[in-house]
C-alpha cells in the first residue's frame, strides 16, 4: 500500500472518530435541555401592564362635555407596591385635564392607599401621579383601577386625533426591588374630529403598545 494512502486513511479515521464522538456527545446531552446561564441574581420579571379603559374615545361631538377614562393596572405575575404614571398630552388639543385618584374601597390598592402626588401641568401637558400601598400593607396582585382621567376637547384643537401616552418615567414597583416591573403601557387614542377624515381612515386606530425600557 502506498505511504500516502496510509496517511490518508489515518486522517480519515481520526476525523471519523471526532465526528462520531461529537454526535454521540450531543445526543447524550439532549435530556438536559438547552444550556441556561444562571445569573447571580434573578432579574426582575416585568409582567405589569398599564392601560386606559376604554382605550379609544371619540370626543369629536363637541367641547362642552368632559370625557372620563379609567387608568388600569394589570400586575401580571407580580404583587406590586405602587404605580407612578407620567402621562403626556397635547395641551392644544385637550383642556380641563384632571386626574382623580382612586383611593377608596374601589381602588386597586384599597382604601388605605397613599397618593404621593398628583400634578397636572396644563402648560407642558404633563400629568404626574403616584399611588401606593400604605406601610405595612401587603402588596397587591391582579387588575384594577388606580385613577380616573377626565378631559375635554380644546377649542384650539386642530388635529383630527390625539393621544395621551405614558412616558418612560412611568414605574410600577414591588417591595424589595429597585427595578420597575412595568412591561408595557398602552396609550389612550382620542378622536377629535370626524370631519377631516379621509374615506380610508379607520375610526379607531390602535397604536403599538409601548414597551418601556429602563
Amino acid at each position, binding site marked *: *500500500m502506498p505511504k500516502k*494512502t*496510509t496517511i*490518508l486513511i489515518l486522517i*480519515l479515521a481520526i476525523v*471519523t472518530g471526532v*465526528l*462520531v464522538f*461529537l454526535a*454521540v456527545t*450531543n*445526543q447524550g446531552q*439532549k435530556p438536559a*435541555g*438547552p444550556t441556561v446561564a444562571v445569573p447571580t441574581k434573578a432579574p426582575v420579571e416585568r409582567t405589569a*401592564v398599564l*392601560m386606559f*379603559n*376604554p*382605550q*379609544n*374615545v371619540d370626543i369629536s361631538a363637541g367641547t362642552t362635555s368632559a370625557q*372620563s*377614562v*379609567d387608568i*388600569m393596572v*394589570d400586575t*401580571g405575575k407580580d404583587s406590586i*407596591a*405602587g*404605580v*407612578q404614571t407620567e402621562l403626556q398630552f397635547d395641551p392644544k388639543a385637550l383642556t380641563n385635564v384632571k386626574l*382623580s385618584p382612586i*383611593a*377608596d374601597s374601589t381602588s386597586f390598592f384599597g*382604601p388605605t*392607599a*397613599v*397618593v*404621593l*402626588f*398628583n400634578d397636572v401641568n396644563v402648560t407642558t401637558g404633563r400629568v404626574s401621579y*403616584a399611588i401606593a400601598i*400604605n*406601610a*405595612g400593607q401587603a402588596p397587591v396582585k*391582579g*387588575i384594577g383601577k388606580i385613577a*380616573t382621567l377626565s378631559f375635554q376637547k380644546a377649542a384650539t384643537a386642530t388635529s383630527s386625533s390625539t393621544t395621551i401616552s405614558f412616558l418612560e418615567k412611568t414605574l410600577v*414597583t*414591588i*417591595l*424589595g426591588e*429597585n427595578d*420597575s416591573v412595568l412591561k408595557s403601557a*398602552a396609550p389612550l387614542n382620542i378622536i377629535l374630529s370626524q370631519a377631516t377624515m379621509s374615506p380610508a381612515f379607520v375610526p*379607531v*386606530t*390602535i397604536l403599538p*403598545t409601548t414597551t418601556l425600557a429602563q
Partner: protein
Amino acid sequence: MERLKAGFNFVFSSYKRTAAVLFFAGLVLSIPITISLLGQQQDIRQRAAEGAPCVITGSGSFTDTGAGGISTDGPGGGSTWVDSPQQGTCAAGETCVPNADSGGGSTGVIAGTCHAGTAPSSTPTPTPTPTTPPTGCGSIDSGGGASGGISGGDSTSSGIDGQPGACPTGSPSSTPTPTPAPTCTPRPGGMDGFLSPDGTIGTPGVIAPPNGGSYCPNQAPTTSTSSNISPVPIVTNGTASEYKITITSTDPQGGNTIFRQYASVNEPNTGGAQRRGLVGWSAVGFEKYWGSVLKAGTVALRCISGGGAVAIYGGAGFGSEYMSVRWCTTSSSGNTRTTEMYVSFNPNFTAPASNTLYGFTEDAGGLYDNFKSLQTFNLATAPTNTPTATPIINPASDEGLDIALKITGIGEGAAALNLNPNPLHPTRTFTMNFKSAQGQDFASTGTLTYDADTGQFKGTIPIPQGLVGNHTVKIRQSGNSANMLWRNLGIAFNPSQTPEIPVVMPILGDADQNNTLNINDYTAFITCKNHYDPSNPQSGTPPTQCVEKEKYDFNDDGKIDELDLNLLLSAFRSRDGD
C-alpha cells in the same frame, strides 16, 4: 496480522478501491450526524410549541369579528390572549366594554366585549334609594358630582340625595312638643371642589369647605369651641418655623361623630383679612376627599394617631403659598374632638399686622357651624422676603463658606412637634457643587456638626480653588446615609464678594440619589420600614435597599417609624432637586 496487512494492501492498491472505501465511510458517518441534527431540530420545535405564549403586540389595527368579544379573538383570528392586554378594535358601530371577568387569557388579563352602539365608559354609580326617612340635615343636591349625589357627602352622611332634610331633634331649637323641624339652608352643592362619593370632581375652588351638608346657624349641634396656635408664631431664620394648630370642637352626639375640622388663618368671607392658609382634617381622610383643591404638589397626610388626614388647600385666595402642613393627630373624648395640625410658615411670610385663626367644624350628618373667629395672633414680626442670613466668613480670606442647615424632624422644640433633639449622627459629610455660568462644575466636601442650641447643622465647607466669576451653589449630604435632593443655596457666589447664605432646608427621602423623589423612593422606604418594624422583627439579610438603614431614618432617632413616613410624605410636595 499478515492477512490484515494483505487485505489493506488489496483494498487500497488502487485509487478506485480507495474512493469506494471513502464513499462508504462517509455514508456511515452521515448517519449519526443526521440523527443528531434531527434531534436538535425537534428540540427547537418542541420548545416553541410548549413555552412561547401567543403574545400579540398590537401592532397595527384589526377588527373584531368574534361573537365572544375581543378577548378571544386576536388579529389573526383564533389566537388566545395569554399575556398582554387586549389591543384591538371593535367593529364599526361597536364599543368595547370591559368584561366583568378576566377575559379569555389564562393569566386573567382584562379584556372587553364589543357591543353595538356607544356604551358608557364606566358603570354609573346608582343613586341611593332612601329606605328610611332622612335623619340628618340633608341638603338638596344641586350639583357637583356627576352621579347627582350630595356633592360633599360621604358614605356616612345621612343626607338623602335630592331631598331637603330636617335638622336633628337634638338641636337647641327643638322643643319637647312635636313641632316641625326647621329646615336647614342647603349649601350650594358643586361649589366647593370636593370629590363626590363616586369620585367625581365638583367645580373646584369657589367656596371653601365643607362640601354638602346644611348650614344650621340656630340649630347647629356641632361647633368649634376653641383653637389656638403654638408656639407664638414668630417666623425667624427658619428656626421654630413649625407650629401646632389645635382645633377643639364639640358635638352633643359625641366627638367621634365630628367628621371634618378646618383651621383658616384669616377668613375674608367673614370680614377678615386675606387668607394665609387653610388646612383641613377629615375623618375619612383619604385623598379623594380633597380632590383638586389641594395645594399643588401636596397630598393629604394621614394623622399619626386617631385616624383621618390633614391637607392644605390650594388655589387662588387660599394663601397656600404661605403655609405648609406636615402632620396631624386627632382624638375624641365624650362630646369633644381635638385635632392638632402641624404646619410651617413660609419664611417669606408677609403677614398683616394682625391675624385671626378661624375654626370650622362639620359632623357626620353634614351639619356645620361656619367659620368662627377663635384666636388672634400677630405675625407682624415675621420676617420678610429677605431671610435672615447666616453671615459667612469672607471667602477671600478664609476660603470657606459657613453653612447652617436645618433638617426637618431634628432640632429643639415643643414636645408635641416630635422633633428629635439628639440625632444619632451629629456629624455629617456634605458635598457642595459650584457651577459656573459656562456650566463648569467644581466640587467641595466638608463636615457639618449638629448644634443643639439652634437645632441646626453648622460648619465650613471649603471653596474650590480656581473659581472665577459668578457660580450657583448647591449642597446635599454625601456618604452612606445620603438621602437629600440637591438644594440650591439661592446665591450667586462670586469669590471676590461675601455672599450671605440663608439657612438651608434640605428635602429628604431621595434614597437612590437620582435627585428626584418618586415611587421608587417611597417603595424602598416602606420596604425598609416593614423590615425594621420592631413589632414584626425580620430575620436574615435585609433587602438590598435597606442595608443603609440611616437613609430612611430621617429624624435620626434610630427608628424607621410613622414620623419618618410623614416626613417623607411631606417631602413629596417638592419632588425635584435643584
